[in-house]
C-alpha cells in the first residue's frame, strides 16, 4: 500500500515537474524574445545615434539619407500629426458608436452592427491603403480643398496628406475603440442605470452623466490601444500620406511617418543608412513604451477611483 502511494506520488511529481519546466520554458521564451529584440534594435541603432549626435538626430529637420543627413523630427512630427488627427476623428465616432450599440440599438440589431465593425479589423492594411489612395485622396482634393480655399486662397494639396491618412487610420482604429468601449459600457452594473433613471434623469443624462464616467477606464484603455495601433500602422499610411519628410504646416500637407520610412527604405539601405533606420526604430520603440506606461498608469488610477 505505502509503496504504491509513494510510487504514485513520485510519478505525479515527475509529471508536475515536467509540466512546470515546460511552462517555465514557454514563459522564458517570450521574455527572452523581447530582451533579444530590444538588445538587437538598440545595438544596431545606437551607432547611428552617436554618429549624428543624439540631439541632432532627434531634432534635426532634414531627413535625406542619400546625402547622409539624418534628422528625424519631420518623421516624428508626421507620425504624431497623423495619429493625433486620427484620434480626433476616431475617438468621438468610436465612443458614440459604442454608446449607440450598447444603449440605444435593439440588442439583435446591435449584434449585426458589432459584427460588421469587428469585420473592419480583419481587412488587411494594404487594402485600406489602396482604398485610401483611390477614394479618400481624390475626395480630399476635390471636396475638402475648395472649402479650405475659402479661407486660404493659396492652399494647395495633391490629396496625399495628413488628413487623408488620418481618415483611413480613424476607420482602422474604430474596431478597437468601439468593441472595447462597448464592453466597458455594457458591463456597468444595471443598478447604476436604474438608479439614475429613478432619480429622474432621462436617457441622455444617464449616458453622459453616469454610464460614460463609470466606464471611463475601459474607454481610456480602448483609446490608448487604438493610439498604439495608429502609431504602428505602416502599409496603409505609406500609400496615402505622400512620404515627404518635411515638417508639415497644415493638415493638407503630405508627411512621412516613422514606420513608413523604415518600411520603404529598409530594403535598399546599406551601412549607415540602415543603422539610422534602426535608430528610427528606437524612437518608435520609446514612444510605444511611454504610451504603454501611461496606459498602465492611467488604468491603475482609474481602477482605484472606481
Amino acid at each position: 500500500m505505502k509503496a504504491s502511494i509513494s510510487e504514485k506520488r513520485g510519478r505525479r511529481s515527475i509529471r508536475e515537474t515536467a509540466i512546470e519546466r515546460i511552462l517555465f520554458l514557454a514563459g522564458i521564451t517570450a521574455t527572452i524574445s523581447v530582451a533579444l529584440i530590444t538588445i538587437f534594435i538598440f545595438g544596431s541603432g545606437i551607432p547611428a545615434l552617436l554618429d549624428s549626435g543624439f540631439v541632432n538626430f532627434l531634432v534635426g529637420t532634414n531627413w535625406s539619407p542619400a546625402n547622409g543627413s539624418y534628422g528625424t523630427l519631420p518623421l516624428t512630427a508626421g507620425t504624431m500629426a497623423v495619429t493625433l488627427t486620427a484620434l480626433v476623428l476616431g475617438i468621438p465616432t468610436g465612443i458614440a458608436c459604442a454608446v449607440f450599440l450598447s444603449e440605444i440599438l435593439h440588442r439583435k440589431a446591435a449584434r449585426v452592427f458589432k459584427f460588421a465593425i469587428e469585420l473592419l479589423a480583419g481587412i488587411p492594411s494594404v487594402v485600406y491603403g489602396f482604398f485610401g489612395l483611390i477614394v479618400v485622396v481624390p475626395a480630399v482634393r476635390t471636396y475638402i480643398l475648395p472649402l479650405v480655399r475659402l479661407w486660404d486662397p493659396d492652399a494647395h494639396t495633391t490629396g496625399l496628406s495628413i488628413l487623408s491618412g488620418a481618415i483611413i487610420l480613424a476607420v482602422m482604429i474604430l474596431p478597437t475603440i468601439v468593441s472595447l468601449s462597448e464592453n466597458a459600457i455594457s458591463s456597468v452594473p444595471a443598478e447604476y442605470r436604474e438608479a439614475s433613471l429613478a432619480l429622474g434623469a432621462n436617457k441622455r443624462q444617464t449616458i453622459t452623466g453616469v454610464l460614460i464616467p463609470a466606464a471611463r477606464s475601459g474607454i481610456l484603455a480602448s483609446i490608448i490601444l487604438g493610439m498604439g495601433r495608429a502609431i504602428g500602422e505602416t502599409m496603409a499610411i505609406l500609400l496615402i500620406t505622400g512620404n515627404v519628410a518635411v515638417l508639415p504646416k497644415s493638415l493638407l500637407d503630405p508627411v512621412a511617418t516613422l514606420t513608413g520610412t523604415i518600411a520603404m527604405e529598409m530594403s535598399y539601405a546599406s551601412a549607415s543608412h540602415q543603422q539610422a533606420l534602426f535608430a528610427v526604430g528606437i524612437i518608435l520603440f520609446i514612444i510605444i513604451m511611454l504610451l504603454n506606461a501611461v496606459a498602465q498608469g492611467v488604468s491603475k488610477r482609474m481602477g482605484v477611483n472606481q
Partner: protein
Amino acid sequence: MKKRSIKLTVAALTLSLIAMGAAACTPSDTSDEGDSAETVDTPEPTTVVIAGSTSVQPLSEMLAETYMGDHPEVSIEVQGGGSGQGIKSIEEGLADFGALSRELKSEEEAVAAEQFVIAKDGIAVIVNSDSDVSDITVDQLLKIYTGEITNWSEVGGSDAKINVVTREEGSGTRDAFGELTGVVGKDENGDTVDNTVESAIVQGSTGAVIQTVSTTPDSIGFASLGAVDSSVKSLKVEGVEASNETVLSGEYKISRPFLYICGSDPAEQARAFVDFIFSSEGQAIVEEAGFIAVK
C-alpha cells in the same frame, strides 16, 4: 549564423540583461544575418539564386518559370531587395547572379567578374492624362525635379502648380532617373548628392506612382516603360517618343540596362540559364514582360 544564435541564446540564459546589453551594444554590422542566409548559404548544386533589383524581379521570375518548365532538374530562386542588394549578395556570395536595373557604379565594378545585359528598359516620364504638355526636355525635367520650375506654364502648359511624384530613396528607378537627368549629381567634394525637391511626393512602388499620377491633376512622375498603361500620358523627351526602338537606338535619353552580374565564373547551370536568356525564346519573354530585347 546558427552558431551565433545559439551563443546568444546561451548568453541570454546565463548572463544578466545588463551584461548582454553591453556586449550587444558594441557596434557590429549584424543586421544582415537573418536576411537570406538560411536558404542561400549552401545552395544545392542545382539551385540558381538570383537576387537584386525589384525592377528586374518580374522578368527574372518569368524567365525562371519557363526555364524550369523545360529543365525540371534546375531550381531557380528569384529574390528582390533592390539593386544594392544585388551587389551585396554577390559580395557575400549569397547568390549566383545579382540583378541590377542600372549601370554598375565605378566602385562596384570590382565586385562583378562578368556582367550580362539581359534587357533594356526605358523610363517613361508620365503626367496626368488631362495635362496639355506633351513634350519635355531633360533640362526641364532636371529643373522640375530640383524645384527650380514649379509651374506648368514654365514648360508650355497651363498655369498650375506642378505636383512632383518620385520614388523612395534607394529605388533603382529613382537612381536611374536621377542619374540620367542630372537630379543626382556630385557636389564640390565629389560626393553624390540627390537634389530631388523636398516637397516631392514619394511613393514606394511603380504601381503606386502610376496610380498617384493618374488620379492627381497636374502631377508628373516616372516609371518603367513596360509598366506604363493608358491611365497616364507618357511625354516625349527631347522630341523623342518613349518606345522600344528609341530606347535600343539610344535616341530616347532616359533608358537603363537590366544587368545580371556574377562574382566568379558562373556555375554550369547558371551559365546555361544565361544562355537561355539570350536565346530567341528568352528574348521573346523579355519582350512579353514589357521590356526591350537586346538580341
